């Protein structure tokens, strides 16, 4: 037989051989051939695995672990030592399709492991991941949203001072080159589409954030879902978020409940909504008057034992308390919608009409994990220009790489974006929650660490 043959005689999978071999053998009266990788040796045969299942096959003679083979099989019932009838298969005419590599012994920590032998639990996660992504599309299409596609490589990246951007070099046909960037989110482009008159749009795409490794919650390349509703505010987006997560939980588990790391979370809409300032009161014993007075707030945070001084920026104070005392406790019975953030922490959000110190921004926490970040989008181009210039200055102060403010984005806002709400939701984290997986690297088939 030729080495590396191009065709196989396979006409059956391991799973259907086990489930319906009688039909295959007797009714169809034909030879049954299966193919797959030999993943283990038995006393009286070997174990073959294809994508559908594993099957024990009896055979005399030597075979090699790691080889990909095809084999004719015959099943029959035999009475075993326990007096019960068992279905057993004999293998005949084992032909090697691809020989094993010399030392086919792969450690689970070897990044090639996933590529060589499907770990059935990881395959299951990949199936669930696909179900979640299909479900997201199903939900938004059911709501009459249009799925759109905007560039992942752009001329100017987002300005968020605390995000690090990937830079790449674009070269045109004449050889002239120019720096371009990978998006940290598709926000600017989607808002330009709102300006053009699209009213209900969503996108599922890769986004990129540099320096985000060494973590179960971040991968530098990740999947982001963003959706926007024109003529709406963050209130409608809260409702979308609740209904979408409930829809997905029902699709996967048949009920609006998920179990994540031993905690059962009831995701049925509506979810409790808590203002940021009330969270600090409830979980960290910081009364609203102290939270709203930066000097007092700084003092309270310092007294709690956090390393802060007069130079610590406001969000350093905020997150020291939030990450230690609040976030780990959020969203364990039901998901929590945390809303009304201090205006300084929401450069792309509209300020609250009744209190300009706060902005219409919300985040959702489930089982202590941040899932999304949403706004009533700022559509006053002059104010947006001012805020982006502030962020530009902040980047400068922090010694981060500087980019000009994106004039095409501001120009689009000048043409007029209807009042709109939008959300950016981490699809990988949603998959983690819906598949009870604590490490993002287990629901991404090729995580950055293994590249």
């Amino acid at each position: 037989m030729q080495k590396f043959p191009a065709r196989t005689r396979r006409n059956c999978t391991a799973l259907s051989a086990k489930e319906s071999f009688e039909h295959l053998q007797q009714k169809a009266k034909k030879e049954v051939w299966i193919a797959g990788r030999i993943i283990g040796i038995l006393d009286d045969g070997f174990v073959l695995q294809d994508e559908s299942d594993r099957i024990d096959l009896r055979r005399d003679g030597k075979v090699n672990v790691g080889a990909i083979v095809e084999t004719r099989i015959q099943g029959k019932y035999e009475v075993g030592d326990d007096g019960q009838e068992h279905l057993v298969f004999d293998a005949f005419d084992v032909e090697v399709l691809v020989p094993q590599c010399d030392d086919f012994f792969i450690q689970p920590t070897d990044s090639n492991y996933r590529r060589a032998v499907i770990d059935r639990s990881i395959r299951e996660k990949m199936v669930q991941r696909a179900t979640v992504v299909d479900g997201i599309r199903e939900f938004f299409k059911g709501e009459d949203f249009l799925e759109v596609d905007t560039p992942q490589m752009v001329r100017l990246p987002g300005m968020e001072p605390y995000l690090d951007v990937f830079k790449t070099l674009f070269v045109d046909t004449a050889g002239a080159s120019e720096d371009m960037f990978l998006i940290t989110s598709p926000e600017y482009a989607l808002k330009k589409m709102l300006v053009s008159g699209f009213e209900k749009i969503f996108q599922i795409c890769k986004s990129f954030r540099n320096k985000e490794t060494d973590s179960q919650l971040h991968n530098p390349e990740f999947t982001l879902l963003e959706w926007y509703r024109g003529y709406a505010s963050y209130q409608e987006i809260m409702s979308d978020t609740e209904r979408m997560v409930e829809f997905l939980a029902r699709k996967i588990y048949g009920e609006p409940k998920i179990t994540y790391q031993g905690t059962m979370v009831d995701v049925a809409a509506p979810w409790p909504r808590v203002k940021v300032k009330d969270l600090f009161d409830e979980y960290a014993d910081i009364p609203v008057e102290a939270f709203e007075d930066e000097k007092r707030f700084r003092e309270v945070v310092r007294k709690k034992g956090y390393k802060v001084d007069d130079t610590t920026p406001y969000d350093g104070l905020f997150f020291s308390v939030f990450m230690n005392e609040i976030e780990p406790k959020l969203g364990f019975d039901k998901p929590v919608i945390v809303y009304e953030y201090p205006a300084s922490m929401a450069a792309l959000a509209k300020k609250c009409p009744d209190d300009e110190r706060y902005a219409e921004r919300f985040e959702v926490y489930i089982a202590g994990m941040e899932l999304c970040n949403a706004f009533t989008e700022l559509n006053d181009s002059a104010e947006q220009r001012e805020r982006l210039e502030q962020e530009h200055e902040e980047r400068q102060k922090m010694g981060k790489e500087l980019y000009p403010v994106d004039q095409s984005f501001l120009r689009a806002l000048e043409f007029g974006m209807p009042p709109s709400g939008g959300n950016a939701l981490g699809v990988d984290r949603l998959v983690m929650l819906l598949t009870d997986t604590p490490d993002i690297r287990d629901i991404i088939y090729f995580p950055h660490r293994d590249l």
Partner: protein
Amino acid sequence: MTTSDFKKGMPLKYKGETYIITAYQFVNPGKGAAFTRTKIKNVKSQKVIEVTFRSDEQVEEANMEYKKCQYLYSDGSEYHFMDNTSYEQFSMGSDIVGDQASYMMDGGNVTIVFVDNQPVSLQLPPKMEFKVIESPPGEKGDTATGGNKQVTIETGAKVAAPLFIKEGDTIRVNTETGEYAERVT
């Protein structure tokens, strides 16, 4: 030091007490400085707490010393060692030694980490060589793990190894993960 210096097993001072980092991971809320979420173990009480440090925050280092020591014996609950320089003897409990006991040979050399003159952790070389004293014959194996089998090494610990490993072979084992690395002879 700052959070970028964090490593597993590193000691630090937190609110006046000494802790060892047992786990850490990076978290970035994206709208403020990044953070590092840690689990740290108090070297006195052995209690583990969760603390999240800001990336720009100064974290106080703790005085740490590495001493070459010899592992003497275990009396069942305590593991006894001798400091190779001072010849002083001391013991550590199984709560500290943990799974590393599987790779310690009577009379073998180990590095012990002292914080504030207290032994807090044990460092084995990342890879160590052991003789295989028992190996199931031929090509029998556990089929579920894809072509490997359990062999017993001279310390009595069991290691998953490829089917070709025989009794009397010397193999290199990764002491952090407990996994087979390669065959030496």
